[in-house]
């Protein structure tokens, strides 16, 4: 393999730090200025992310003009201990460039939308502060030039995600969901830390270029360990099996948060991490298989549970889980599929953000209700939301010529191209997932916008204001066109990162896969439309075991409860008892003893000079006597 080296940043590209500094500045001002910024704070939040987007665009085009398509910017040394040097450096290359555009571009639209969405919330300034903080951390994550920098961003987005999920912290469900997301991510983050420690142990560095160049010298066990540890971290952040349960709960946060963090950007960080570490993953087929299994399993898992949910945001959340499964599948397949995963990620960023914002618009109209069984017939009342949601729906189910068609079909084709029986299994899973996706997305779409009205009496649906619909329209347009536009151009753009992609030939040709996918998608969507055209019951009715299992998140919660919660509670109550009786007893007894000694001895502090002088004198006598004892001996 060729030596990987990154050219030093010059000209406009040396401003990469400003990308991070802008939103970070916004967050700092909004947090420090306090209530004084309540009136204009949200516009500052929008302005900083808008500025970052403009800068990212300019940097993107100046990167296109470079020969080696990479720019490394050294900022300062974080740590220098012995042989280990950890620099704060930023890497702007084709991969981080597209992420920067996604984060700042989609982020900008969602910031604008949130100005309207949060207009009645007293905590709007704080919301925008956290939102900017998130953008800054996410940009650190994708711009970091070594694993340590990525980790800083990784933890930063975790923090911002926690703060924003639990934004309405007085709502118990939101506070619990925030905690759950945080704890789950912490567990997975241990994988990231251990991966870094392993790199330091084996290669003595966490720098991207040095790790990738030295990776070839790793033993199989080492590359397996690093790969699996990174995979664990990626699964946690991206809500993949077995860490999927936090993501649907995260929908307790305000809808713009769900759109930006838990659909378009942060949850795709796992995909970014694997794509960035493609050198390590390509080394070891076992690791790749693990990624493929996680991806295939999760995409089915998410799609099945998504079919059984009645909360519009939760369906979308499970669909996110499922779609990220596709991305994992792609980056797990390796080779040319790395780029496919990234393209699907970008397209998904558009249409899923659009869908979430659309659901937010619906909630806005329906007094913050989220139960699709109480919607129906909304298309007349909110035509713009309806049209943009339809665009997102068509994009996610992947009908020709909409976005998903261009980005999901190649992944399914690549899955079928895997050698031996694995190709049939993985390809089949991906194909089945496409059918399920079409089914449940059609269900959401039809139950929300078509069929009879099943509204609760007190709602008066209305279209959202322009500040919310304009971003919706832009994202809707992106959902329609982005996939087709990106399919070939972004593959070429990413070539410097992933190498040349080759046409893959496997069990089925690309044309066969396209036909098969289109057939199952139409079937799934048609079935969904047929079943739910007349609405649905407003209470859940008895159902066969697969539906019951799907309603219970396929047992994910039960496993968590039995495997982690119950033992943890036992351990907690045991340690409370230990702490209360043994530790506190010892500490309290000791402190009482010391306090008592202190009070007794302080009696000597009489305040009389004569007794002080006596103390000095007796001290002197003792000192002299002690020295004399030495003489006598």
């Amino acid at each position, binding site marked *: 393999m060729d030596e990987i080296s990154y050219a030093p940043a010059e000209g406009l590209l040396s401003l990469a730090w400003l990308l991070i500094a802008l939103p970070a500045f916004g967050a700092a001002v909004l947090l420090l200025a306090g209530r004084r910024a309540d009136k204009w704070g949200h516009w500052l939040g929008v302005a900083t992310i808008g500025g970052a987007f403009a800068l990212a665009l300019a940097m993107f085009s100046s990167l296109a003009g470079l020969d080696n398509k990479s720019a490394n910017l050294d900022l300062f040394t974080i740590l220098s201990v012995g042989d280990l040097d950890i620099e704060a450096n930023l890497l702007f290359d084709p991969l981080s460039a597209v992420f920067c555009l996604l984060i700042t571009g989609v982020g900008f639209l969602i910031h604008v939308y949130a100005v309207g969405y949060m207009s009645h919330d007293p905590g709007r300034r704080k919301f925008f502060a956290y939102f900017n903080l998130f953008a800054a951390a996410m940009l650190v994550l994708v711009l970091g030039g070594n694993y340590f920098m990525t980790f800083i961003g990784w933890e930063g987005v975790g923090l911002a995600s926690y703060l924003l999920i639990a934004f309405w912290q007085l709502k118990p469900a939101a506070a619990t969901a925030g905690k759950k997301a945080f704890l789950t991510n912490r567990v997975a983050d241990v994988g990231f830390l251990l991966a870094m420690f392993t790199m330091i142990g084996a290669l003595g560095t966490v720098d991207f270029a040095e790790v990738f160049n030295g990776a070839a010298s790793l033993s199989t066990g080492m590359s397996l360990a690093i790969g699996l540890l990174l995979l664990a971290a990626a699964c946690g952040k991206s809500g993949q099996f077995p860490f999927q349960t936090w993501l649907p709960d995260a929908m307790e946060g305000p809808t713009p948060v769900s759109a930006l963090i838990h659909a378009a950007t942060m949850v795709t960080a796992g995909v970014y991490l694997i794509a960035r570490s493609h050198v390590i993953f390509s080394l070891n087929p076992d690791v790749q298989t693990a990624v493929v299994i996680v991806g295939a399993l999760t995409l089915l898992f998410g799609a099945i549970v998504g079919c059984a949910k009645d909360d519009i945001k939760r369906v979308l959340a499970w669909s996110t889980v499922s779609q990220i499964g596709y991305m994992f599948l792609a980056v797990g397949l390796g080779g040319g599929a790395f780029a496919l995963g990234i393209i699907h990620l970008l397209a998904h960023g558009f249409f899923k953000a659009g869908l979430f914002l659309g659901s937010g618009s619906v909630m806005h109209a329906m007094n913050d209700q989220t139960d699709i069984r109480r919607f129906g017939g909304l298309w007349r009342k909110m035509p713009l939301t309806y049209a943009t949601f339809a665009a997102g729906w068509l994009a996610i189910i992947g009908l020709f010529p909409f976005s998903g068609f261009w980005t999901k079909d190649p992944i399914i084709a690549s899955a079928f191209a895997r050698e031996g029986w694995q190709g049939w299994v993985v390809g089949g899973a991906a194909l089945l997932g496409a059918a399920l996706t079409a089914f449940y997305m059609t269900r959401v779409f039809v139950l929300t916008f078509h069929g009879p009205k099943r509204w609760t009496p007190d709602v008066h649906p209305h279209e959202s204001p322009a500040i919310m619909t304009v971003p919706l329209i832009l994202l809707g347009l992106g959902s329609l066109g982005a996939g087709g536009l990106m399919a070939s151009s972004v593959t070429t753009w990413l070539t410097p990162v992933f190498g040349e992609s080759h046409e893959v030939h496997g069990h089925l040709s690309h044309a066969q896969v396209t036909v098969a996918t289109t057939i199952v998608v139409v079937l799934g969507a048609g079935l969904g439309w047929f079943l739910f055209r007349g609405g649905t019951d407003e209470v859940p009715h008895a159902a066969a075991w697969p539906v019951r299992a799907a309603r219970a998140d396929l047992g994910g919660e039960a496993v968590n409860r039995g495997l982690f919660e119950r033992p943890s509670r036992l351990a907690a109550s045991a340690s409370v008892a230990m702490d209360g009786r043994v530790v506190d007893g010892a500490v309290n007894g000791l402190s009482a003893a010391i306090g008592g000694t202190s*009070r007794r001895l302080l009696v000597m502090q009489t305040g009389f000079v004569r007794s*002080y002088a006596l103390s*000095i004198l007796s001290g*002197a006598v003792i000192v002299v006597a*002690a020295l004399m004892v*030495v*003489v006598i001996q």
Partner: protein
Amino acid sequence: MNEAQQAGLQIDWAGLAPMIIVFVAAFLGLLVEAAVPKGRRLVVQVSLAVLALAAAFAAVVLNAGKNSAAFEIEGVGIGSVVLDGPGLFLQGTLAMLAIIAVLLLAERRTTRGGDFVAEAAVVADSAADKAQRREDGATEIFPLTLFAVGGMMMFVTAGDLLTMFVALEMLSLPLYLLCGLAKRRRLISQEAALKYFLLGAFASAFYVYGMAMLYGFAGTVDLAGINQAGTDSGQPRMFLYIGVAMIAVAMLFKAAAVPFHMWTPDVYTGAPTPVTALMAACVKVAAFGGLLRVFNVGLASSAWDWHLILTVIAVATMLGGAIFAVTQRNIKRLLAYSSIANAGYLLIGVIALGEAVGQTMFYLAAYGFTVIAAFAVVSLVRDGDEEATHLARWAGLGKKSPGTAVVVTVLMLALAGLPFTSGFTAKFSLFTAALQADELGLVIVGVISSAILAFPYLKVVVLLWLNEPAPDAPTVNLPSPMAGTVVAAGVAATIILGVAPGFLLDIVDQASTFLNT
């Protein structure tokens, strides 16, 4: 050519410059009192003192790297003033700490006219005394401070016992006076001054007596000569032991080691808070500078003889200071007992001799900055005109004055020795050095004592943040730039030496060898 040069006497004027600058400025300060109109004296005195100390610091820096006696006859050094690494480092530390202390002495905004009385001779609580509370404080405090600081700078570079004694008196006398100048609670202040003076005089007598004994034993007052005599003198060793004991008692008195510590809480509480800050930081540096030199240069050869008793004193000081501190209800008394416990930790550095000289000096510098800032904050929290020193009055300060509470928290955590503060790096490096000198037992006691001592500090933090403020809670007076600088500098040093102590550790490492050891 004058006679001295003919006799072959060479004087290192540059080396003496720091002390000369400070003393000359002190005398100029006296002239200022006579010549400058009252209204302008404060500005002139403060500028003079700060400039002089800054110049002295610069002169110390220029002397860096010297390793010689200031007076030489025909190339052979006379021990009276010794310019070596530890001496110069401690002189520099003293100058820096003194600048900060002077700024605190000059604070006039937190209480009208400052913390000092205008006419010290007025009978306390008389009508005249009440009348003068509205007047500005005396400005003689600045020359007095300069004399004391000059004495301290001389103390840490004195190479023979006689010079050391002169320096000891020079640093002590102005301090006795300064202790009695508090504007509020005049009687307590005067009582503190008198106690300090009486006991100080008592201790000085021990010193002179010990010096005589050592002279009898060694035939010289030069520290290096005494060390030499420790191995080859024909005199009875009895003289040596009595001498060592007496000198040690006198210096341990200044350093506030148990059982010579009893003056500390009374004097720290009674003295005006800025003077307490000066004593806690600078006198500590001077006393331990002297102890380090006497034991490293003069008594290293008899280390076996005094090792046990000094160890006992160190243990008593560490445990005593910490245990006494636990039940204190007054922040100034708490800091006083904590200063006693810290003297115990520093004694470990003295006992460990050459291995720990650098780390002891680092500890002195780190502790000095923290403790000055702590006393500065004490002077800001007020009930009306008086300082609110009772800890119960500090309850809930975090709610009313979060900025001050954060500063106090940082300082308390530093004094408790938590990581990322100078308190941790100082203790850690000192204890590490002591381990290298095979003082495991002392280090264990030191750690236990630190754990006990952390309790009262953390109790203050709990009090600040987790308790509800009383309805008539004290106000935190906004400091002028003077005290503001003191707090900022102290907190900055506390954090910098906690996060990035490398540069100072390098300096003390290079400056850790005494001349003639």
